[in-house]
């Protein structure tokens, strides 16, 4: 160590003091900075951070309401909520998820093909939130799991309320179904009110009264921790349960109608002409709505959709068929109304009809002809030639206007969505419906065949039942309705639904009686086309058969020849009301490819009339 570098203790101490003082100043400055920061956070921005901390800890959660029930007119349950058992897994409680899933698949409790979906959910959900392994277990499966439960910690059975349709396929086209809310549904409904709801009504009554069936979602404020785990309920606003709906459907009649159509394709609609209530609305084949509410598999749904019998298609509301001869009583009434014909005027039926100066022969269904026909016998025997003459003298416009009064060509306004309007042709309609100029004019021949309900004319089974009801009630119609009453569970009050009358038709009572008499002759007259179905009836039935040619069947599908032949047979139709003098029930029956209205359709109507009358006249 050189002399020049000798330690100078006094100088060093002074320098050290200087350094320590400098360090002390830095310490104080930094501490001051920290205090400044704390004041800024805790005093200046206190309210801002208080708000943020509140938002952190309190979460608003929806409390889903219990869906309203559906009953028939006599209070029998058609749709209810029953606890079902679903298999759930709570990820944080499971040690080895792969082993657990494999074990459950081995027991047949989890389906192999659902594993990818389950794994996806496991990835995206919080670890304490249950993942649904299987939405529904039947009782034996639940029992099987209960025995094996110790092997699967973290897996449990949860009961939840699910929509159930205890009748299965019966009335499926009336009820419709609920199933998972889709993106389109969310645009239609108030998303806030569906915050806690998994399913919504898709078709049928479930859809028609979705708002009231669903109820109002309640809310609860819960204290949550950082992981979102609920710790405590702070505040609660209970959900308002959905309303219970009493439908006008009579389950006995409904089941009878569906049984009568079993194995065939067709529809039956029964109305109470006195108030428009729909007593039965059957479309066969139907489907099991439980499949949808329990979560139908894609495969199953595609099978239903591609079934050539179209079980998802509501024929009663959406099926549009040529009405055929069933409109003849209405046209007869039109003839009387417009003075085109008198009841006793007679027409000779040689078995065919030609327009003046035309050679084309419009054939009667009876080749040899009916001979001399007056109004009543023409309806009773369904003489085509009589109605060819009548159609020509009425003209298409008057036929259109008159049939429109009976509801043809426009939806009846029943509550179930998706109803079709049918087709009531007119000159105006044809001008607009065809794009090629040469197709647009109305041809006289088209008037002729409209007289027997063929050509362009189409009607739904519901429209035909409605026409029968209006006629049976002597022109005083009601809007068809499925709603008998609404029950509010909160107040316990049941609100009855008043019938909604339509404007009475400006018809002469004597003309109406003539038309109805002609329909009675169909059932009870010596040569009535449906006299077999009218035989020995304790009550007078007014009816009319119809047979409608099939326009076309779906192209491009491979059907075997036998099937093609079967599907080209004409549709069988029938309308009726009873008792004829004071009807309590009006019915339309459609049997696709049933060939004969009198043989295939009329007996079904008779069975319904007898069943209803036996109970109503007590």
């Amino acid at each position, binding site marked *: 160590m050189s002399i020049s570098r000798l330690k100078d203790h006094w100088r060093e101490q002074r320098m050290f003091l200087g350094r320590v003082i400098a360090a002390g100043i830095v310490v104080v400055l930094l501490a001051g900075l920290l205090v400044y920061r704390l004041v800024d956070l805790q005093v200046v921005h206190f309210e801002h951070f208080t708000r943020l*901390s509140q938002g952190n800890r309190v979460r608003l959660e929806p409390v889903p309401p219990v869906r309203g029930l559906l009953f028939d007119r006599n209070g029998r349950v058609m749709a209810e909520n029953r606890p079902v058992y679903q298999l759930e897994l709570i990820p944080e409680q499971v040690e080895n998820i792969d082993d657990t899933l494999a074990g459950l698949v081995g027991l047949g409790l989890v389906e192999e093909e659902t594993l990818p979906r389950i794994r996806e959910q496991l990835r995206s959900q919080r670890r304490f939130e249950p993942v649904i392994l299987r939405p529904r277990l039947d009782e034996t499966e639940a029992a099987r799991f209960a025995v094996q439960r110790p092997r699967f910690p973290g897996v449990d059975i949860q009961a939840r309320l699910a929509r159930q349709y205890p009748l299965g396929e019966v009335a499926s086209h009336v009820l419709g179904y609920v199933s998972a809310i889709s993106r389109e549904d969310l645009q239609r409904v108030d998303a806030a009110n569906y915050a806690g709801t998994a399913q919504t009504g898709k078709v049928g009554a479930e859809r028609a009264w979705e708002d009231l069936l669903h109820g109002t979602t309640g809310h609860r404020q819960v204290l949550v921790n950082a992981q979102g785990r609920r710790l405590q309920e702070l505040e609660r606003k209970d959900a308002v349960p959905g309303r219970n709906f009493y439908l006008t459907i009579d389950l006995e009649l409904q089941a009878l109608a569906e049984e009568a159509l079993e194995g065939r394709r067709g529809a039956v609609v029964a109305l109470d002409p006195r108030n428009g209530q729909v007593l039965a609305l059957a479309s066969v084949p139907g489907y099991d709505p439980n499949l949808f509410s329990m979560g139908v598999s894609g495969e199953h749904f595609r099978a239903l959709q591609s079934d050539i019998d179209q079980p998802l298609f509501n024929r009663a509301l959406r099926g549009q068929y040529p009405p055929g001869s069933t409109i003849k009583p209405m046209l007869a009434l039109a003839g009387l109304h417009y003075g085109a014909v008198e009841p006793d005027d007679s027409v000779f039926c040689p078995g065919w009809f030609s327009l003046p100066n035309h050679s084309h022969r419009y054939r009667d269904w009876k080749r040899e002809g009916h001979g001399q026909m007056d109004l009543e016998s023409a309806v009773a025997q369904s003489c085509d030639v009589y109605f060819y003459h009548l159609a020509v003298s009425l003209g298409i416009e008057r036929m259109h206007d008159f049939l429109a009064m009976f509801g043809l060509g426009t939806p009846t306004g029943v509550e179930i969505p998706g109803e079709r309007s049918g087709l009531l042709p007119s000159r105006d309609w044809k001008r607009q419906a065809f794009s090629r100029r040469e197709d647009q004019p109305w041809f006289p021949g088209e008037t002729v065949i409209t007289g027997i309900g063929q050509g362009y004319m189409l009607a739904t089974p519901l429209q035909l039942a409605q026409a029968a009801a209006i006629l049976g009630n002597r022109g005083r119609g009601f809007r068809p309705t499925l709603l008998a009453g609404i029950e509010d569970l909160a107040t316990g009050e049941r609100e009855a639904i008043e019938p909604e009358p339509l404007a009475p038709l400006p018809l002469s009572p004597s003309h109406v009686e003539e038309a109805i008499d002609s329909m009675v002759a169909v059932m009870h007259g010596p040569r009535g086309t449906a006299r077999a179905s009218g035989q020995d009836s304790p009550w007078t039935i007014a009816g009319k058969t119809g047979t409608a040619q099939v326009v076309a069947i779906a192209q491009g599908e491979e059907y075997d020849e036998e099937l093609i032949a079967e599907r080209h047979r004409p549709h069988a139709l029938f309308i009726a009301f009873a008792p004829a003098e004071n009807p309590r029930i009006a019915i339309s029956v459609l049997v696709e490819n049933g060939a004969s209205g009198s043989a295939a359709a009329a007996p079904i109507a008779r069975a319904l009339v007898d069943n209803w009358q036996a109970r109503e006249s007590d």
Partner: protein
Amino acid sequence: MAVSQTVFGEHHSLSLGRRIMAGLKLDGTLLFGLLLIAAFGLVVLWSASGQESGLLLRQLVRLGVGFAVLLVVAQIPPKVLRLWSPWIFLAGLALLIAVLVVGDFGKGAQRWLDLGVVRFQPAEIMKLAVPMTAAWYLRDRPLPPRFTELCILLALVILPAVLIARQPDLGTALLVASSGLLVVLLGGLRVRLVLLLGAMAAALAPVLWHFMHDYQRRRVLTFFNPENDPLGAGYHIIQSKIAIGSGGLFGKGWGNGSQAQLEFLPERSTDFIFAVLGEEFGLIGLLLLLAAYLLVIGRGLYIALQAQDTFGRLLAGSISLTFFVYVFVNTGMVTGLLPVVGVPLPLVSYGGSSMVTLMAGFGILMSINGHRNLLAR
């Protein structure tokens, strides 16, 4: 021993308590400050742990061990500490290398060395060994040091810091480096050189960035803009600021901090315990704790000024200022002033290894202070 007799004679009138303190080489003011902070810490920890008595008990044991270590170290004369310094440093360096080679994996980083009975972090030794060795190196040299001496000192500081940073434990590496650099600064580094070093550090920043781990880079980026990643890396800072800010002037009350109790605040009983204090006891509570810290640091600097040789002066100054660096890095992180670096709040955060080191450091302070009068001028 005539000298010592006169010394004791002067203090003849002192109370029995003070005589015991002096006999145990303890400084009353410093001890009071430390006990105050520790008591504060236990109160907050009770709430931050979610009223878990087991955790509190373990911390209490740790504090007990810490104070025992303090007491033991205080009895070792500074002369002995000075002689041990280079050997402790070399042993620590060897252990650091061992950790890198065979280190046990803890929290994704190789920090722990399993000695069968206890697991401990060799980096902790370096927190004291580096300033001790730096002070030892400068003990007899005229100050300020010359350039070659500075280079040796920098090597002494940087080598262990780099090894620790590679574990990777950036927080401890920075603390170790700063404890060594503080010795150099107190040793009379020229202001010009300080500025030059600052410029060099700024120039080296991109190089440092290059060697950083992804999570370290993310922390730095998040520091500059925490809202960028509110659920990821920015979450800590955002939740911590909410906790402190919503505490207001007087706090939400003991055990009532929703941010802490509902676990929105991460690491609430360890690195972010300062935010729990802020939420539940408000600005008043934070200022009280800060005052206690400043008392300890001020007393430490006073002891440094009173020290009788260069080794004691430099070491005492470095230990006191490093303690402040601890406090400031942690509180700066929790309040969002600094990036998130895993540095606990000394004596308050729940945790073991660093507590013992810390108390050993204060033991050294006590020793430097307590053995002063026995040395002849």
